[in-house]
């Protein structure tokens, strides 16, 4: 049962006098509870697609639907999001940042404190509830952002290259921990990255996007058993999948 259906989606920008085609005829669907990753070259319109799916901007043609409803505005109770930049409020503590989406909707303070304390625990930061963002490392900030994305208990989490700014060791660790969180919460995750390794290691399905104008040029099912071990990254089958995606991205499209 698809939770997300994107059909014939296109986005044109007007830049100066010229029209830029950012996305062209993007069609795919995401099944409930799946971990789906979108990879593609820089500037292929990945983030634009995510912004449309988040309801932040509108499509020129086509549409994105969640549970059958067209997405025309942010839907905080259905869609949570984690950005490349943690976008935490610097004047709020870690806990208050996680509570922020609930505070916006005037959820009772005791209830939201209880829920968000649990979420901080889930991302391994229960001891840092009172710390301010500037007192946390880059990885910890992104953990707070993940907990915040879960705060309104949405069924879908959109993640826009969330680990791109982290060094490789932290990044690998974060991916591993994200899988654990995903398995424990049963959310659907739609993840954007330009790291093929990250995409294959994390996902059930990898969608491959072409250079601008972006469109889906490949859908790969990744069936390594779960829970996954980091050792699979060195395996032969992992390398084969990686090469296939690499060829899809690097070969010129008609």
């Amino acid at each position: 049962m698809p939770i997300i259906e994107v059909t014939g989606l296109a986005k044109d920008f007007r830049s100066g006098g010229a029209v830029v085609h950012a996305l062209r005829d993007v069609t795919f669907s995401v099944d409930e509870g799946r971990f789906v990753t979108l990879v593609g070259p820089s500037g292929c319109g990945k983030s634009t697609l995510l912004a449309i799916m988040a309801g932040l901007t509108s499509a020129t043609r086509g549409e994105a639907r969640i549970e059958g409803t067209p997405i025309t505005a942010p839907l905080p109770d259905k869609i949570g999001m984690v950005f490349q930049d943690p976008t935490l409020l610097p004047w709020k503590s870690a806990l208050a940042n996680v509570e922020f989406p609930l505070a916006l909707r005037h959820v009772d303070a005791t209830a939201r404190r209880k829920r968000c304390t649990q979420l901080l625990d889930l991302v391994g930061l229960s001891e840092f509830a009172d710390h301010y963002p500037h007192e946390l490392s880059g990885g910890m900030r992104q953990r707070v952002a993940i907990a915040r994305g879960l705060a309104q208990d949405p069924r879908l989490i959109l993640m826009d290259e969330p680990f791109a700014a982290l060094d490789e060791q932290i990044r690998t660790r974060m991916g591993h921990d994200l899988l654990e969180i995903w398995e424990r919460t049963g959310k659907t995750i739609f993840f954007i990255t330009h790291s093929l390794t990250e995409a294959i290691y994390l996902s059930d399905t990898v969608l491959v996007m072409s250079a601008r104008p972006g469109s889906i040029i490949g859908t790969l099912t990744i069936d390594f058993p779960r829970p996954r071990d980091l050792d699979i990254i060195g395996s032969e089958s992992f390398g084969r999948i990686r090469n296939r995606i690499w060829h899809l991205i690097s070969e010129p499209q008609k």
Partner: protein
Amino acid sequence: MGAALAGHLIFAALLFGGWELAVRFALVDASLLPPLPQVCAILWGFLHDGAFIGDLELTATEVAVAFLIAAPLAISSGFLLGERLHLAATFNPVVHLVLAVPQSIFLPVFILAFGIGFLEKVLFGITHAYFIILVNSFAAVTSIPPALVAAARVFGATRVQVYTRIYLPAMLPLILTGLRLGMILCIIGVLLAEMYASRRGIGRLIFGWGESYQIPELLAGILLVSILTIIVNEAMRLLELRVARFYRSAAGS
């Protein structure tokens, strides 16, 4: 904090110690540099002198009125320019040109246009404070990371919530910096107007004492104005620091 306090104490010790030594060893003509205790006694007398207090109150009122008019005007103009960048493209260069010119040279024009008195002094204070607060308010709006606003919208923030929960707290440190600098310039503007041409006010008194060689009164007046402006500035700076504690990583997070 401790280091700053030590610095202040050392500066005060050098200033007043040097003053005392200069007087004691007659390094400076006694009529040009009266002893500190004498100046302090005169200052103490001023504080019990109704006429002096009246002048002080007038100056303080002029500064307060000018600041209270300039601050909201400047903050909202800066906000408007920050939110409407096509307007900023037109008006920002003008603002920077105005800031580059020493405003003191326009004082004669103000006097010709508005006469000598309360209105002219307040207007001169307003134009001194307005532009620097505007520039800081503009910087405050444009420094808000767009991603922060996008995140708030994804989490369901209404337009009003974006302003109250993102814009306002995010802008606060730079707004406070602007207000503090604006207050300093506002005081400068009003005192300048008083010293140049005025019938009343603390600036007029200080200028008059200088002209008539009343050195102890002159020094007492300078000392008092210095202390008062330092208190105002430090109070605003403490508020600024308190708020800014949480913003260190605002750009980096």
